[in-house]
C-alpha cells in the first residue's frame, strides 16, 4: 500500500488545490511544441528535413505552427514567422540537433540555461550560417559547418559560478570554434531600432573575458542599435582594454627576468596612458596586434529565404 503523509490543510492550501484543478488552463503549449519537435528530430531527422524543405508537404504548415508555438507567438512579424521552417532547415543542414534548440541545454556553464525561446534567435543563427556579416570591430562573422552550436547557454556574470539565475549572462547562440568560444546575443526589435541597454549584461561579458570563459562576444540585431547602445559598447570595450593593460602592468614588475623573446612580445609599458578618445586608431591596432577581446556589434542580420 502507498505510504502517505497527513498534514493540516490551511487556507492557502485550498487555493493551491483550486489552482491544481484548473491547471489545464495554464498548459504550456510552447513546451509541448518543443517536446514534439525534439522527438521528431530525434526519431527521423531526414524525414523532418523533407517536411521543412517542401512547402506543399501536408505537415509543413503544422511544423510552422509548432515552431511558432515553441519560440513564441507574435514576437516577430508574420513574414518572419513564415521563414522559420526554412531557417531551421538551414541550421539543421550542418548541425545535427544542437543542444538547447528544442531540448534542455546542458547547465554546467551556468544555472538557468534554457532552450531557444525567441524566433529571432533561430532566424539570426540561420542568417549567420547563410552569409558573412561585417562586425563593428571590422572582422567578419559567419558560422561555418565545422563550428559547434549551442543555444541558450548561461555564463557566470561574476567571479564564482552562481547558484541563482540572476548571477548569469546569456549567450543566445554559442559558437565553439576549436578552443575558442564565441557568444552571440540576438537583439530583436519590431521597430528595427534596438534601444534596451542592460548594464548587468555588459559587466558580465567583461568578467567573462577576464575569466577566459568567452573569447569573442557579439550583439546582433535585425535593424540597428541606437547611439546610446553603441556608446555603451564602446565604453565597455575601453574597460576591457584597460583590464588587459592592467594585467600587463603587473607583469612588467618582473620585466628583468624575461627573456629577449618574451620582452619583444610584451605590449608597450605606457598603454594605459593612451587617450582612448583621441587615439582610437592606436587602440584598434593594439587590439588587433595583441588579440584583446572586444564586444562587437552586427546590424541588419536577417535571414533571407531563397
Amino acid at each position: 500500500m502507498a505510504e502517505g503523509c497527513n498534514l493540516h490543510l490551511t487556507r492557502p492550501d485550498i487555493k493551491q488545490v483550486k489552482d491544481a484543478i484548473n491547471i489545464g488552463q495554464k498548459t504550456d503549449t510552447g513546451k509541448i511544441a518543443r517536446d514534439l519537435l525534439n522527438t521528431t528530430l530525434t526519431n527521423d531527422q531526414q524525414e523532418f528535413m523533407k517536411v521543412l524543405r517542401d512547402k506543399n508537404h501536408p505537415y509543413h504548415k503544422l511544423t510552422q505552427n509548432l515552431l511558432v508555438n515553441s519560440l513564441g507567438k507574435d514576437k516577430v512579424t508574420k513574414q518572419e514567422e513564415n521563414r522559420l521552417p526554412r531557417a531551421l532547415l538551414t541550421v539543421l543542414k550542418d548541425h545535427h540537433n544542437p543542444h538547447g534548440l528544442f531540448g534542455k541545454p546542458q547547465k554546467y556553464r551556468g544555472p538557468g540555461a534554457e532552450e531557444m525561446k525567441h524566433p529571432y534567435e533561430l532566424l539570426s543563427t540561420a542568417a549567420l550560417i547563410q552569409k558573412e556579416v561585417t562586425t563593428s570591430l571590422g572582422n567578419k562573422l559567419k558560422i561555418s559547418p565545422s563550428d559547434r552550436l549551442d543555444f541558450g547557454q548561461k555564463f557566470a556574470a561574476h567571479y564564482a559560478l552562481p547558484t541563482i539565475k540572476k548571477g548569469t549572462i546569456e549567450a543566445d547562440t554559442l559558437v565553439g570554434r576549436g578552443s575558442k568560444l564565441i557568444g552571440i546575443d540576438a537583439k530583436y526589435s519590431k521597430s528595427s531600432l534596438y534601444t534596451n541597454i542592460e548594464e548587468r549584461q555588459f559587466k558580465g561579458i567583461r568578467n567573462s573575458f577576464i575569466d577566459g570563459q568567452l573569447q569573442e562576444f557579439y550583439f546582433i540585431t535585425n535593424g540597428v542599435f541606437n547611439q546610446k547602445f553603441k556608446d555603451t559598447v564602446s565604453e565597455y570595450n575601453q574597460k576591457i582594454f584597460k583590464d588587459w593593460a592592467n594585467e600587463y602592468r603587473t607583469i612588467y614588475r618582473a620585466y628583468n627576468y624575461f627573456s629577449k623573446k618574451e620582452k619583444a612580445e610584451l605590449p608597450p609599458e605606457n598603454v594605459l596612458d593612451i587617450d582612448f578618445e583621441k587615439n582610437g586608431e592606436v587602440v584598434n591596432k593594439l587590439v588587433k596586434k595583441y588579440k584583446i577581446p572586444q564586444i562587437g556589434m552586427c546590424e541588419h542580420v536577417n535571414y533571407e529565404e531563397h
Partner: protein
Amino acid sequence: MNEIHKEIHKEIVDTEKYLGVTFPASYRKFLEEEGSGLIYGLPIYGLPASQNIDSVWGATEALRLARPDIPSNYVVVRFLDSRALCIDLTNNGKDTLVEINLIGNEQPKKIHDSFALYLEKGKGNEDEINRALRKIENLFRYENIKEYDHKSDPKNKSKRLPFKAKDWRVMRSSVHDQIVGLTAFKHNEEFNGLEVDVFISTDHPDYEAGHGIRALMILLLSDAYKNGATMEIRFTRHDPKKGERVPDRIPNQLNALLRENKIRLSRYEQGIITHNEAVNLYASILGITNELKERIKKYEAEGKLSLQGVCYILSSRLWTIEEASWILHNCPRPEGVLFGRDLPEDRMKYLESLSYGRAALAVTRFRNKLENNISENEGDSFVEIDGPLWKIVPKQPSEIDWSISSETIEIIPEEKITVLSRPRRFMPSENQLITEDVNTLISNTKDVSRKFLLYSSDFSKVSNFKEIADRINLTMSHLIKCQ
C-alpha cells in the same frame, strides 16, 4: 439544427476528413456539446478545426509527425509532458483511451476502457472536489476552526496551535506530493466518537486503485483510537436553513470500500458507522485475516489487548502484519512484545519479549535481503505464516551471506523457502537447543523447500557452534544468523 450547430457539425466532419478517421459517438457528442474542455484539471482537445496543437486535428497530426511508427488510428485528445492521451479507433465504435509516449518507441498503453466513462467520472469528481472545498471554506468561515500555520515559529508559544480532539481539524493525506484525500473531523463528546464533515479521496496514478480512500480511512480511524474514545464515526453536514449540523449520507467512495470488505452498516441511513463496524473495517483495511481476528479477540476477552489497538500499531508501521501475526501465533505474551508493555525491571519477561520481537524482526531483515537485490523482476516476496514457520517465495534472484560458515547462498526466483526464526530461550545446553530447533523445522515442514534456521547474531558467540552443527549432521549453509 440552428446555424451554430450546423457550423460545429461541419467542423467535426472536416476534421474527420482531414485526419481520415471516424470519431466514436462519445467523442463526437463531446465535440458537439462542449467543443473542448477540462477534465481532472487537464485539457481535452477538440475544436476549432485547426492545425494548432491544442486542437484535435493539430495534435493528432503532430503525433503522426513525431511518432511515424504508430498507426494512424489514434486521435490525440491531450498532450501532457511527453505523453499523448489518445482515443484508440482500432476497435470499431469503441472509445478506449490509450497513452502514447512521444519519446522512444514504446507501444500504446491502455489506461481507460471508455472515453465516455472517463469524461463522466472526471466531471463527477470535479463536482465532488468543488463541493468538498466549499464545505471546508464554510467550516473555516462559520465554525471558527483553528487554522494551522505551517510556517509558525515552534518556539513562539502564542503562535502554536494546540489542536485538541474536540477541535475541528482539516487534514490532507498526500502520496508523493499529490493530495489523495481531504477530510475535516473532530471528536464529538456528545456521542463519544468521531464526527466527519468533509471526506473526499482520489488515487495516485502510480499506486493501486483505492489506496487513497484506504489512507484517508486509516487517518480517521487512527485518530479515533488515539482519542481513547469509541471508534464510532458519524458523517454530518451544516444545514444553513436549520443553522445546525445534521446527519449526512455515507460518501460514495466509502460505500465501495465497505462493499469490498463485505461490511454492512446497520445505521447506514443515518450516516453512522458503529464502533464494531469501524473496528472491523480498520482490521480489514490493514489486512488482518478472520483467523487472526479471532485470535486477537481471544486475547481481547482476556483483557490483554484490543483489535483496534493492534490495528493502530500496524497503521503506525511499528510492526508489519506478518510480524504481528507471527508474534500473536508464537509468543506466550504477545501484548508484551507488540505494545512493549514489559519493563526492564521485570527482567525475565522483558528479555523474553525482546527475544521474540528480535526473532520476528530478523525475518523481515531476511526478507529485505531477498527483495533488495537489483534485478529486472523486482517485487515483494510472497510470505505466509504457518505456525512457527515463515514460508517465503522470493520473486527475484538474490544472495544470502549470513551463513555461519561464511558461505554465500544463492537464491533463485520462485524457490520455496521455509524459515524458522528462533528467539533465545533457556535450555540446559546449546546442543539440545539447536537439536530441538532442527527437529521443529524438519517436523513442521511438509513440502519440499529450502530450509533456514535463523538466529540472532549473538548466537555466533557460542564457541562450539560448528561442532554442534556437525554432531547433529546439519548442513552449515542453512544455519544463518541475522547481521
